[in-house]
């Protein structure tokens, strides 16, 4: 048993952390978030040059990492800077391509890791409420090809993507795990309508409508109807990523609050002298240590058998949901009015921490999964 990171991962964390501290302050972040597609292509290129996109992929895919701890280490740093560039979208779609792609599709990975090609994963729908098996978008077999109809909700960075991985049902009922296919397609194809928008926490997504989109067998990513396991696996990776991101953001939020407690004076003393605030800070620190442990557990079990891997993913995501809400709400509360202002950095961290609960399953969703695993699911 060993809880120290390898030299390579420490270097990855140091490099990403230094770059973000020096080049990604909150004003820069706001400016980037206000760009038309919600991120800065030039910044993305710099991340690529630093090898940070490559850290999402294993060496067989041309990357420099790809393991649970690579992702955890990188996203913790991204969380400390509220980085809006499309790391999550790249992780989701990129890893599906790496996992399932044929030679032609795999060839895209080089451009993805170099920052030249952008990809996104369109899976969630209006009524899926985090259930990964819920796919009502259909792909109907017509002759040698497929006709796709449906609507995908809140596709992260989907409107900037050069290629989109989309899930569609080829058989079975809406919530069946069997019968889901993935397609890798060009979003400029006829019948695809993308509507982009900013999110409440400063990120960017789009809704996508597919109307009689004609695809061929060559567009399939992996075996038709058998996509669920790969979707669950990559969603687990993404859940780990946002848990680590939340860990980074939670640390910044408590650091800022601690500083504020030491400097803000009321009733003639720094408010950090009040025990009621001291104890609440202590409670947050304990929960953050718990989150760090849960992230370690999830990262360390990414290659474990499915039931073990998914148990730890859900444990981490549930804990992050609970601890995240505590930290977000308490750090705003302890700041008082200043914590409610756009101008101050803290509330932007708080918003991200809370909204992470809405990605890849919230606290309740993952608690339900833990219950089901206990019952042998």
């Amino acid at each position, binding site marked *: *048993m*060993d*809880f*120290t*990171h*390898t030299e390579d*991962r420490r270097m990855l964390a140091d490099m990403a952390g230094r770059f973000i501290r020096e080049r990604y302050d909150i004003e820069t972040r706001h400016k980037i978030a206000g760009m038309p597609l919600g991120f800065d292509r030039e910044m993305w290129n710099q991340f690529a040059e630093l090898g940070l996109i490559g850290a999402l992929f294993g060496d067989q895919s041309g990357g420099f990492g790809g393991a649970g*701890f690579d992702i955890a280490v990188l996203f913790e740093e991204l969380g400390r800077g509220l980085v809006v560039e499309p790391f999550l979208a790249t992780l989701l779609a990129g890893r599906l391509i790496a996992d399932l792609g044929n030679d032609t599709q795999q060839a895209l990975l080089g451009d993805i890791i170099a920052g030249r090609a952008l990809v996104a994963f369109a899976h969630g729908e209006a009524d899926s409420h985090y259930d990964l098996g819920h796919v009502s978008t259909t792909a109907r077999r017509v002759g040698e090809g497929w006709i796709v109809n449906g609507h995908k909700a809140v596709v992260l960075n989907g409107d900037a993507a050069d290629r989109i991985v989309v899930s569609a049902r080829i058989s079975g009922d809406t919530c069946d795990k069997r019968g889901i296919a993935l397609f890798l397609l060009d979003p400029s194809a006829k019948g695809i309508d993308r509507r982009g928008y900013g999110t409440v926490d400063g990120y960017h997504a789009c809704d996508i409508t597919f109307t009689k989109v004609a695809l061929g067998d060559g567009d399939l990513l992996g075996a038709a109807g058998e996509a669920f396991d790969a979707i669950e696996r990559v969603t687990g990776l993404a859940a780990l990523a946002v848990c680590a991101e939340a860990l980074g953001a939670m640390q910044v939020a408590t650091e800022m609050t*601690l500083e504020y*407690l*030491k400097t803000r004076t009321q009733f003639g003393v720094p408010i*950090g*002298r009040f*025990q009621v*605030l*001291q*104890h609440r*800070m*202590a*409670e947050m*620190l*304990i929960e953050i*240590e*718990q*989150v*760090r*442990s*849960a992230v*370690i*557990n999830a*990262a*360390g*079990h990414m290659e474990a058998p499915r039931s073990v891997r998914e148990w*730890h993913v859900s*444990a981490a995501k*549930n*804990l992050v949901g609970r601890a995240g809400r505590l930290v977000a709400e308490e750090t705003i509360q302890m700041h008082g009015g200043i914590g409610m202002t756009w101008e101050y950095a803290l509330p932007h961290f708080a918003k991200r921490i809370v909204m992470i609960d809405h990605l890849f399953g919230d606290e309740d969703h993952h*608690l*339900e999964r*833990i*219950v089901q695993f*206990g*019952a042998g699911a």
Partner: protein
Amino acid sequence: MDLSFTPDEIAFRDEVRAFLAAKLPEHLSDKVRNGHRLTKQDMEEWHAILSARGWLAASWPKKWGGAEWTAIQRHIFEEECYAAGAPRIMPFGVNMLGPVLMKYGSEEQKAHYLPRILDGTDWWCQGYSEPGAGSDLASLKTSAVRDDDHYVVNGQKTWTTFAQYADWMFCLVRTSNEGKPQQGISFLLIDMTSPGIDVRPIVTLDGGHEVNEVFFDDVRVPVANRVGQENAGWTYAKYLLTHERTGIAGVGLSTEALAQLKRIAARQKKRGRPLAEDPYFAARVARVEIDLAAMRTTNLRALQAAASGAPPGAESSMLKIKGTVIRQEINDLARRALGLYALPFASEALEAGHNVTLVGPDYANPIASQYFNNRKLSIFGGSNEIQKNIISKIVLGL
């Protein structure tokens, strides 16, 4: 980063398992599993078995007859012991006094007392808390006045666990009223058979008798029984408290308590189905299981950091708080799981071999009582509120 045990650690775990399978007497594990009270003889029996194997003092150096295990080995040993239903090792001599003597005691004191802790000659109790000195321990008033080569001790200690069994007490006394309260405290070893000592039981809310009041009326204690310097006892007491908290997370205890909770929830029924399948109850169990899994790793991280020489920070305070909250939550759920049959209680039925005819399921009788008894967890060893003060002072600098 590697979350699996090394081959050496696995071999160690297997060795511990084999030892427990061969040496842990069934009448002891039965008592532990059934929530029956352990007698002094039970605890001494288990200590003797461990001592014979050289495993009683896990953290002591080999020089003093300890096992000199790594932090991870101690963690493994603890988990395996609780999983097997072994009685808890009484910490007073082995884990509290022993380390203080090794660090601050005279050579004579080490040579005399340490072997007697290991061989069970002396049963120790801890004389810290007083009626007016609980969380504010440094305000203690029990006085020790020098009279030639003796101290004359007067005052009262309270919450003294198993003082009724103890041969000796390590005791904080006031030897000076000069300066800050912390500066006038000394650390004495007191023979419990000394004239002038009166031990009176305190019956706790669960009806049990573990803790006592201890009164001192002109009790004469040789100066040779003082550990370290006069008026420097606070330093030794603090050192002891940090040792007291090694393993304070109680991961092994909570893991076993959770397993018991699941066994109960599988047997209790609601609407004709096992309670374990009730989504609301199952969600509560799942939540505490998530917290425990994270705390297990938090504990291991702290153990590794300590083993690699990192200065102790507020980890032990964090683990004390989270560990006790988790265990109390499990106790609460076990109580809830019983529904109506949490109510009937026969204190006599906590003794093994009782002849009380109980109503309800056979595991029910001690459960609510344990819940009430374990409210102590967040109070003793520095209350959870004191731990939060420590965290805000050490980590936050507030």
